[in-house]
């Protein structure tokens, strides 16, 4: 029933490539088996996939760490226990010593504690941005896929325009529009960038659902339009959205770090965030590269975890790679 999207040809535009990836995932939901057993059979393959397991382990460890960070951190991230060791001329960044295994930052605050507590902000920004992006995409995609007609054309026109702009650039532009940057402007900017991805994805799987046998069967019983959309189409269309959400989390975390690094995030450094820490480490790259290295490594590892998990999930659900 569902056309399998063609492999991307050699020369395609950026927007086309993004759209094709999204559509391939959408078509997974319409694969012959139907939602429940689709996820089941995907899980059977994933259980033995080391790439997925590594991604899962990193992700779980990160989330667990973020949840217990305040109790784990030896110091308050805003306290300045090593303030006395900071010598702006000779020793701007105090190194490791007893009780401070990673040393301190340029304001004498315990670096380990700041990294631990920083994971919370990173997780919060990522999760909230993904959540709002998902919400917006859900509304637009459901509208476009279920109503069709000119609403569909309009929504998809906007979505395609947004998809043709690289997401980081768009997020950067949106965040820079805010007169007073804060954590919330950051979240909104990143969420907005994710909306077209989720919208296109959901529309694709809603269209596949609309053409499905069980929707035809429900219509043959006179089931009302609203029940068709919300009971028969939407729950079955959500599968690929869940996969996309894990991928978006990875992107959201990287983007959030990038924007904070550029000073477009929360300006208050008493609440640490990895991207912000990385930004503030810039002046000391020569004397204390570790100040930049630790938050950067954290961002990379966590983003890698989400990406490995999301990509192998996507692969497991993709009808083209299934045997």
């Amino acid at each position, binding site marked *: 029933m569902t056309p399998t999207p063609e492999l991307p040809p050699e020369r395609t535009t950026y927007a086309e490539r993004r759209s094709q990836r999204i559509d391939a995932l959408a078509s997974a939901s319409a694969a012959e088996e*139907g939602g429940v057993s689709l996820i089941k059979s995907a899980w059977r393959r994933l259980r033995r996939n080391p790439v997925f397991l590594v991604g899962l382990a990193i992700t779980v460890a990160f989330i667990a760490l973020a949840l217990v960070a305040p109790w784990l951190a030896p110091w308050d991230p805003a306290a300045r226990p090593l303030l006395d060791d900071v010598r702006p001329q000779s020793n701007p960044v105090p190194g490791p010593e007893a009780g401070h295994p990673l040393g301190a930052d340029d304001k004498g605050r315990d670096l380990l504690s700041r990294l631990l507590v920083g994971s919370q902000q990173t997780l919060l920004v990522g999760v909230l941005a993904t959540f709002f992006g998902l919400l917006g995409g859900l509304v637009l995609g459901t509208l476009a896929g279920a109503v069709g007609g000119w609403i569909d054309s309009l929504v998809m026109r906007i979505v395609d325009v947004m998809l043709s702009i690289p997401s980081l650039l768009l997020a950067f532009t949106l965040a820079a529009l805010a007169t007073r940057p804060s954590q919330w402007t950051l979240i909104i900017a990143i969420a907005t960038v994710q909306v077209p991805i989720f919208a296109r994805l959901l529309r694709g799987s809603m269209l596949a659902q609309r053409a499905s*046998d*069980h929707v*035809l*069967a*429900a219509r*043959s019983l006179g089931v009302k339009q609203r029940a068709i959309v919300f009971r028969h189409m939407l*729950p079955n269309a959500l599968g690929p959205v869940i996969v996309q959400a894990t991928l978006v989390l990875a992107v959201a975390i990287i983007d959030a770090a990038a924007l904070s690094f550029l000073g477009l995030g929360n300006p208050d450094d008493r609440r640490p965030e990895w991207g912000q820490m990385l930004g503030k480490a810039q002046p000391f790259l020569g004397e204390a590269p570790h100040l930049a290295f630790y938050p950067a490594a954290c961002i990379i590892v966590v983003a890698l975890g989400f990406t490995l998990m999301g990509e192998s999930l996507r692969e497991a659900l993709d009808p083209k790679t299934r045997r």
Partner: protein
Amino acid sequence: MSTPMSTHAVHPVHSSEPLLSVRDLRVTFGRRGEQPFKAVDGISFDVRPGQTVGLVGESGCGKSVTSLAIMGLLPTRGNTVEGSAVFDGEDLLRLSPGQMRDRRGREIAMIFQDPLSSLNPVVQIGRQVTEVMERHQGLSRKEAMPKAAELLERVGIPDPKARLVNYPHQLSGGMRQRALIAMALACKPRLLIADEPTTALDVTIQAQILALLKELVVETGTALVMITHDLGVVAGLCDEVNVLYGGRIVERGDRHTLFSRPRHPYTVGLLNSIPRLDAPRGEALSPIPGSVADNLPWDSACAFAPRCPNALDVCVQQTPEWEGDDVVGLRCFNPMGVSR
């Protein structure tokens, strides 16, 4: 509605008014600028209360499109539907989508070929059965649930109470088709359209499902349109049979006449391709040569001519017209049993 057993005899009472009267139904696919494709090309037939009518033909001859057109379930764009389908005095093809929705499931219901994909994978069986009763009978889910259990019991699902909370993938293929039959018959529709309801099932299950359908239509007096490519299914179930070829009806008759004295060469071909138990050992089945891809356009010829053993010159020059009425008829220049 109760129809006494006697009216559902081999020869139905033709005097009764038709429940469904399809006239000159045409469905054309293709948007502007494209070459239009006539999937259904002027089909007419009647279904009387309590009667079982078969639509038979090879894949692609327009059986499903006919039934979807009657049900108002064709895609909203990309096709045109002409003709009429009068059901109980109303032309279904002229009703608004909302009016049609009120009739589907209550007056006319349908069952489909693939029972697994026809059920919503993420909704429990019980809820799927009660949904149609909530929709048309104004029952709450609580009121409808015991009725759903009764219905499942009636269609032969063992332990129906436990099945209510099962998901479709937890049921066997036969059970799923039984559940779909229960859903279709939940509001006691007057007409049921079954589109190849047994094609996706094992042979032993097929016979059970057909027996169940037969039993239920007799019991409830529901008229049945049975769509199939399998004349064996028709033989056991239908009062009247319509043989379709290339979007038109080529032969019609009651099943006894059709089976004992088929006249259209295509009907003969279909009959010869049924495996028979009494056939001499080693005798090969004779499938119809060629495929529907060879069809000629009906406008200027007989579509079946390239595959027809009886074809005459006239067959590729003129359209054979329908000779007959709404009970028996034929569309052929050189039928079987007539000297060549």
